[in-house]
């Protein structure tokens, strides 16, 4: 048996290895090319998208000065007036309110899960929080209409305006609950899970040796978290917040259902607003016979894209500046 095998071995090796080797190399080459092409396609999506938007928005960009588009408050498509300022401010107001509501509790939740919660609690809580991120946004919108809007209309707005009505931030002639605050609350609930999930990972990634060093000096958990863990983790935590911010800026359906959709610059958290996303989703495909209307809506999309990209770049630059070199 052994002798036969020895005698055959050159043949076996030749039959097995030469074609096999070539096949292996070919598969390796193609796998690499295929995956590389997919990666390239994904990376190219952003510039392609931006280019397409510029082309489609070009008629209005060429016909109106940029300053008028960005800073005029007159939105009268039938009269040919396209001022995006109310929509830009609507997006910024709703997003700002959402982040103010969402960031502190989600960071504290992330810290609790990473630093305090026993393993068993974390094992239950983490999947539930991730599930929250998977709920379709229209469900959040319905929840906002059925719960948040009436609560603001009946309780929150009267209470706040009764005590702090003189403060411009809270003064409003909008009696419905539909407005910036409702949009902010709904958005806040939507960005909680993504901020929590990323921030928790980042906090957990801080090496245990660093925690031990602080605890072994007699520091309490909270002192350790505040002075050591968060100091180390904060660039990553900031990235988690930026992720939430990007999601809040782009969220459409849930916001559209509760913000009131009035093309006016909001001056208070109880005023109605009309974010860019809602403008596009509500109007695209309708009244397309109005001259320049189609181009105007795509210009709105372009502005939104630029705001998101701008926030991302700005925050990344700030992070790079503030992160000490290793």
């Amino acid at each position: 048996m052994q002798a036969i095998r020895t005698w055959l071995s050159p043949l076996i090796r030749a039959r097995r290895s030469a074609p096999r080797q070539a096949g292996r190399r070919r598969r390796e080459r193609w796998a690499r090319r295929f995956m590389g092409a997919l990666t390239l396609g994904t990376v190219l999506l952003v510039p392609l998208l931006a280019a397409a938007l510029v082309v489609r928005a070009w008629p209005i960009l060429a016909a109106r000065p940029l300053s008028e588009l960005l800073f005029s408050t007159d939105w009268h498509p039938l009269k040919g007036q396209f001022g995006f300022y109310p929509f830009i401010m609507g997006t910024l107001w709703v997003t700002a309110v959402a982040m103010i509501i969402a960031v502190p509790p989600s960071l504290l939740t992330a810290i609790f899960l990473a630093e305090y919660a026993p393993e068993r609690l974390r094992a239950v809580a983490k999947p539930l929080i991730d599930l929250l991120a998977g709920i379709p946004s229209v469900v959040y919108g319905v929840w906002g209409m059925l719960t948040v809007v009436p609560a603001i209309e009946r309780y929150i707005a009267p209470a706040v305006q009764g005590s702090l009505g003189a403060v411009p931030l809270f003064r409003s002639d909008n009696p419905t609950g539909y407005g910036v605050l409702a949009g902010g609350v709904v958005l806040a609930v939507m960005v909680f899970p993504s901020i929590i999930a990323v921030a928790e990972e980042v906090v957990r990634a801080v090496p245990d040796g660093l925690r031990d060093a602080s605890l072994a000096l007699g520091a309490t958990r909270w002192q350790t978290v505040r002075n050591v863990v968060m100091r180390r983790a904060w660039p990553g935590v900031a990235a988690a917040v930026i992720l939430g911010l990007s999601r809040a800026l782009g969220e459409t359906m849930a916001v559209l259902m509760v913000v009131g959709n009035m093309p006016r610059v909001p001056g208070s958290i109880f005023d109605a607003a009309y974010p860019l996303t809602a403008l596009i989703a509500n109007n695209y495909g309708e009244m397309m016979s109005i001259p320049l209307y189609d181009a105007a809506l795509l210009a709105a999309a372009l502005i939104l894209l630029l705001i998101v990209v701008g926030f991302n770049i700005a925050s990344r630059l700030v992070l790079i500046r503030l992160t000490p070199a290793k």
Partner: protein
Amino acid sequence: MYKPHIRIEDLKAWYGNGQALKGITADVPEHQITAIIGPSGCGKTTLLRCLNRLLEEAQATRVSGHVWLDGTDIYGPGVDVTEVRTRVGMLAPKPFPLPMSIYDNVAYGRRIHGLQRTLDKGNGRNLDRIVQHYLQAAGLWEEVKDRLHDPASGLSTGQQQRLCLARALAVEPEVLLCDEPTSALDPISAQGIEEQLLALKEGTTIVLVTHLLRQARRLADHIIFLWMGELVETGPAEQIFHSAQDERTRAYVAGNIG
């Protein structure tokens, strides 16, 4: 005869369902260096981390038994664990400088205990003096005195370990636990740390975990020898190294096993 600073009594420890320490009873003499020796996985580090109650910070660990520190059981009811850890300092195998300046690393322990409020009133000169004193005690002062406010992460590993020593000493612990404190260091830095430890035992009780028999021979006055989570033998270094009672101890110190 020695005066015991720490008495370990029937100490047991578990990670999940696995028992890492199976009832250890031993003394740590005051103002001496006690080395905990034994082969890998015998529970050296676990025992050490029980002495400042750091073990319980890890998930799913459990400890039973007593550790008497100057007559008080640190596992007794109503004991403030931060106070235990203020009295019992620690030096880890790898230096972990806190993400702050050299100065702030040394001042950290003082600050979290609010000690600066009494010592540091006014211009902070007292804290400055404390920082300088302990950087000198750790043999690092000359190298860093001109860049105290630079980030500690910029120091070399050897310097970082001396910084961690200064940081631990600045809280003025009675006991210093050292967990293989030279294992990440080059021979010169390691020698530096060993010299600091020898100088420190004048006023501090030192417990040293080491897997280096030669290091134990150089430094230790007293030995605790563990084997698979059990105490095999404990006593003065002289006795353990030259006239051990147990077969395993003799084999281990001769270098035949472990």
